[in-house]
């Protein structure tokens, strides 16, 4: 077992148990901080794959910005319960429906992924990540989706400002 594989399994264990903790804990702040850990470990997996740019983006966006956004969302919510979530349920009591949805999704995933023949080699060649090439692809081949995304984000931004300005 190579060091890379060992690191992959260790990281996967932390990621999966972290993700499980996020959805099962009653303490919402713990969930936020565990989210940070999980996202950073996903960045570490990108690092293992020599995708440095993706790793940095993962840290910047998911570990940094999304955690910040969740913290701000929590600041705006008014909670009746205690901050540690004692006596609170983590779900909305619709266990049957959610179980069916999850099982259905799992079935679809298995149906799609299992018969697939994956072109996996024992040791994939390590390609040095090339930010310039990535930039060229985004701004030449995929310029239209990129622009559409920015227009959608701009619309969301303007919408939020309009909604927030209702006092005058």
């Amino acid at each position, binding site marked *: 077992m190579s060091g890379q594989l060992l690191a992959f399994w260790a990281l996967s264990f932390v990621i999966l148990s972290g993700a499980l903790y996020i959805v099962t804990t009653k303490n919402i702040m713990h969930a936020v901080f565990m989210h940070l850990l999980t996202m950073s470990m996903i960045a570490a997996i990108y690092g293992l794959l020599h995708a440095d740019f993706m790793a940095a983006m993962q840290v910047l966006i998911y*570990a*940094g910005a999304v955690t910040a956004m969740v913290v701000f969302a929590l600041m705006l919510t008014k909670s009746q319960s205690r901050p540690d979530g004692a006596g609170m349920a983590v779900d909305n009591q619709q266990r049957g429906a959610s179980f069916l949805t999850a099982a259905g999704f799992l079935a679809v995933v298995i149906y799609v992924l299992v018969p697939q023949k994956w072109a996996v080699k024992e040791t994939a060649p390590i390609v040095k990540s090339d930010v310039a090439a990535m930039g060229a692809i985004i701004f030449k081949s995929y310029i239209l989706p990129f622009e559409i995304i920015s227009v959608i984000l701009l619309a969301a931004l303007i919408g939020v400002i309009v909604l927030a300005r209702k006092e005058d």
Partner: protein
Amino acid sequence: MAIARPFLIALALVIFVLSNIVFFMWAEFKISGRVADRLGPMETGRFHGWAQPLADILKFLNKEDIIPANADKLIFRVAPFVGFIPVVMVLAAIPYTNKIFVRDFDIAVFFVIALSSFTFVSMVMGGWASGNKYSLLGAFRAAGMLLSYELPLGLAIAGVVMLSATLSLIGIVQHQTVWNIVLQPIGFLVFMVAMQAELQRSPFDLAVAESELVAGYSVEYSGMRYAMFQLGEFFGLWALASMAVLLFLGGWHGPYLPGIVWFFIKFYGIFLFLAFSRVSVPRVRPDQLMDLGWKILLPSALVNIVITATLIVLVPHYQLPLAISEFAILIGALYLMRRVLK
């Protein structure tokens, strides 16, 4: 030996930076003392109190590690590390000359920005986990502030990256035949202001404002954990001041002297600027902070990007027109602001 080499390099680097940080602390004591017409530390170590920071560090090491009864124990314990480890990791990406560097990252600029976003989380973790109103207020102030100033900081860097067409810090320095401060004066000013806010230094230290919040997110911390927050700030200063030198002041370029000397001359120039601005400008209010960030710095950074991008695309030899238009807009804007504020 081959396995030990990276660890030895890391150890040497951290010791070098730490000894510089001890000097920073002493210099700040002395400068803020002199500006306030005091002498600063004079006793410890006989000569102008040079051993004061060492004595402080020893004191922190010996203090009891108090964890409040109300605190969320685990998060309270972990928070200083979440802030400290990433800023130390940033050191790996900073080159000092084109020979002396740890690793030439393809994405060094991004690496530094991405890792510095952990500072915010460590402050929120520490402030929330303390179970104290003042710490929570400090943490939320820190959150709002770091978030609003990360944007102009990143956008100010974007102009430089567009000019050199690379994210590698060594590449950016090698590309600077003319220092970027001449081509990007607006970007440099935005960077210098946003940098002080990111470092939580006075005049932007309202997250730890002594007169309002006791010590903000770090109220309940003592001993080594408190020292880690403080050291993290100094490591952050090291990283961002180096970034300022590398991105805008031509890094190790300079006549006669060797590159490493030029780097540290510029680096200590930035440090002196930070030390003096800390004691000469009064602390801003939260609303002034937001106004400055969102209404002045962010639009300026955007204007900078638009001008830079337009000239790079349209004009073949864009350096002179770029410098002229940037300085014209800067002087015009400052003049207008003076007229309006009168």
